[in-house]
C-alpha cells in the first residue's frame, strides 16, 4: 500500500467519524428518542389510552392481523405520548406518518418510545411489516385536537 492508499483509509475513517459525531450530537441535542426495551409482560397486549396529566399520556397499542387496538387515538394538542407497542399474533410495523416514529411490534416483546404532538391534525399509522394477506389494509389513526375544542 502506498501513501495515497493510507490517506484514503484515514480519510474514509475521518468521514465516517464525522457522521458518527453528527449522529450523537443530534441524538443528544434534539433528544431524538430511539426505541427502548422493557421486559415483556402479557398485560401489554390490551390496547388502551391512559391520560396521566394535562400534557402527558401513555398509549398501549396492540397490533393484530390486520389492525391496531385502539384503532383511533384521540389526544389534545401539546401532549407528550409514551407509546408501548406489542403484537398479539405475528410481527407488525408501526410507522406514524410525518413523525419519524418507526417501530416494530414483535410478539413476546414490548417496544417503547416517547413522542410529543405539538400540532393539530390527523396522523396516520401505517403497518410496514408484512403480516399476512390483509397487510395492506392495516392502518391506525392519531387525531390531535385543539384543547379548547375538546372541552
Amino acid at each position, binding site marked *: *500500500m502506498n501513501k*495515497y492508499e493510507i490517506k*484514503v483509509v484515514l480519510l474514509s475513517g475521518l468521514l465516517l467519524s464525522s457522521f458518527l459525531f453528527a449522529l450523537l450530537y443530534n441524538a443528544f441535542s434534539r433528544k431524538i428518542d*430511539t426505541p427502548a426495551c422493557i421486559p415483556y409482560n402479557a398485560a401489554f397486549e390490551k390496547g388502551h389510552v391512559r391520560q396521566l396529566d394535562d400534557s402527558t399520556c401513555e398509549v398501549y397499542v396492540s397490533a393484530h392481523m390486520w389492525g391496531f387496538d385502539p384503532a383511533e387515538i384521540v389526544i389534545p394538542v401539546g401532549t407528550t405520548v409514551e407509546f408501548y407497542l406489542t403484537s398479539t399474533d405475528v410481527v407488525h410495523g408501526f410507522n406514524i406518518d410525518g413523525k419519524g416514529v418507526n417501530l416494530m411490534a414483535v*410478539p413476546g416483546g414490548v417496544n417503547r418510545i416517547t413522542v410529543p404532538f405539538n400540532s393539530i391534525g390527523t396522523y396516520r399509522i401505517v*403497518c410496514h411489516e408484512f403480516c*399476512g*394477506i390483509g397487510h395492506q389494509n392495516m392502518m391506525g389513526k392519531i387525531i390531535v385536537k385543539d384543547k379548547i375544542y375538546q372541552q
Partner: protein
Amino acid sequence: MTISPAYRKTILFGLFMPMTLFILGVYNGIMQTIYRAGVIHRTSVAGINYYQGLTLHGVINAIVLTTFFAVVFGHVTVSFYLKKEPPKWTYLMSMLLMVVGTLMDAFTMLAGTSEALYTFYAPLQDSPLFYIGTALLIIGSWIAFGGWVKVWFEWRRENSGKKMPLAVLGTFVNFTMWFMSTLPVAYEVLVILTPWSLGWTNQVNVPLTRMLFWMFGHPLVYFWLLPAYIAYYTILPKVAGGKLYSGNAARLAFLLFLILSTPVGVHHQFSEPVFTPGTKFWVSILTFGVAIPSFMTAFTVGASLEYAGRKRGAKGLFGWMARLPWFQQENFLFGYFICGLILFIFGGLSGIVNASYSLNQMVHNTSWVPGHFHMTVAGPVLLVILGVSLYIYSTVAGKTIKFRTLATIVPYLWMFGVALLSHGMMAGGLMGEPRRTNMGMTYTNPDSDLFNKHWVATSTTTMIGGFVMGAAALLYFISFFATATGKRTMEPVIELPESEDLHEEKPVPLLLNMRPWIIVSAILILFTYIPALISVFKYSAPVRNKFQVENPNNMIK
C-alpha cells in the same frame, strides 16, 4: 486449463438452472411495481398473489441465484488460479444438495404453502419443506468450500513460498464468513422452525429467531457482494486495459470484510424492542467500519481504471473516464462492471444512512430500503453475476456468445432502469411509503379510504424503472439462452481475464495469513452477540403463536 466432463457439467448446470428460475424472479419483480403503482387493484394475477410473488422474487433472486453463482464462480476462480479441480464427490454432492434444496423451496413457494417472504419471520409459518430446502441449499455451498480447502492445501504443499492468489483469498474469505454466519440460521431453521412447523413444538421465541436470522441476513449481503469485488479486483483492471493498483490493499479490504461482516446484523433491528440502545449504537459503529473496505475498493478500482485510461492516452483530471472501453462488443464485460460500480456509489451511500441508528428511524421498512438495496444487489452484484455467467458459460461450454450486441447494451439499460426504480422507491420511502405492501389495493387505489396521493407519483416512477429493467433482462435472457443452447465451437476451458499488479509490493505477512483475522472475527461476534442474546432472554418471552398468511386465527388453540 482443460476440464473434466463431470466438472464442466456441474459448472454449466449451476449457471443454467438458477438463470432459468431467475426468469420467474424477474417476472415477479416487474409485477410488484405494477401492483404498487396502483395500475391494478388485485390480490393476484395469473394465479400468483402479490406476497407469493414477492417471496419468489426475494428467494430466487437474493438467495438461490446469488448462492449458486458464488459457488460456481468459486469453482472457476479456485480451479483457474490453482490449476486443480476439487475432489469430484465434493462438487457433485454440493450441487446435488443445492439443486434439491432449491426445488423444495420453489415447489412450496409455487404451491402457496410458503409465502412468508425471504426473511420467513416467525410466527408466520412456512411449510417445513421450505425450511429444510433452504438449509440444504446452504449446506451444499459448505461442501463446495470443503473441496476448495482440500485443493488449497495440496497447492500450498507443491508451491511453498508462493502467495495465495488474490482471487482465491477473496473466495476463501467469503466462504469462511459465510460458514460462520450461516451456522445461526441453520440452527434457526433446523432446530427451531422445522419442528415448530411440523407441529412437534408450539412455542417460539420470536425475537430470538429474528436475531438469528439477521446474524445471517447481513453477512448474506457481503456474500453476494464479495464475488463482485473479486471480479473488480482481479478481472476489471484487465478488461479495462490497465493493471491492479495495489494487491495488498485488495487483500486488506477482503480481510476487513472477514472480521466486520457478521457482527453487524443487529443494524436491521434498530426499530425493535429487546436490544438495548448500547448494542444498537455499537453495531452502528461496526457498520460504519465495514464501509471502510468499500471506500478502499472504490479508491483502488478507481485508480486502476484511471491508469487504464491514461495508458490509452487520456489527459487532464477526468479525461481517463472517456477513454475507458465503453460499449465495446469484444469487451462486453467492462459494461457490466462499470455500470455496477456506478450504481454502487449510491447504493453504498444510502446504506450509510440505514446504518445510522437514529436516521434509520426515518427509513426503516419504508420503500427507501429496497430502493437502497436494488442499487447494491441489483447493481454490482447482479450485473457481475450476469456478465460473468455469460462469460463462464461461453468458455466452459466452449460455445460462442450469441447476440453479443444485445449482451453489450444490457448493463447500460439495466443501470438506467435501476436508477429510476430506486429513485422512485427512495423518494416514496422518505414520505413513508411502506415496503412489502400490495399498495394497489389500498394506498394507491383512489377508491380506498387509505388512499395516499403522495405515493402515486413515486410508485409510478418505480414502475417505469421496473419496465426498463425488465426489458434489459429480456435482452439478456435472449443472449444467454441462445448461447447456452448453441453448438460447441471451441475447446471447453476454465479461463478468466487475469489482472497483473501495477507494481511489485513487499509481501505483508499479516495479509497472507487468514488465521488471526478469523480469531478477531470470532471475538467481535461474541462481543456483539453475547450481550444481544442476554437482552433477548431478559426482555422477551416465547409465545404460543403460529399463523398462516391468509388466516388471522392462531393455529394453536
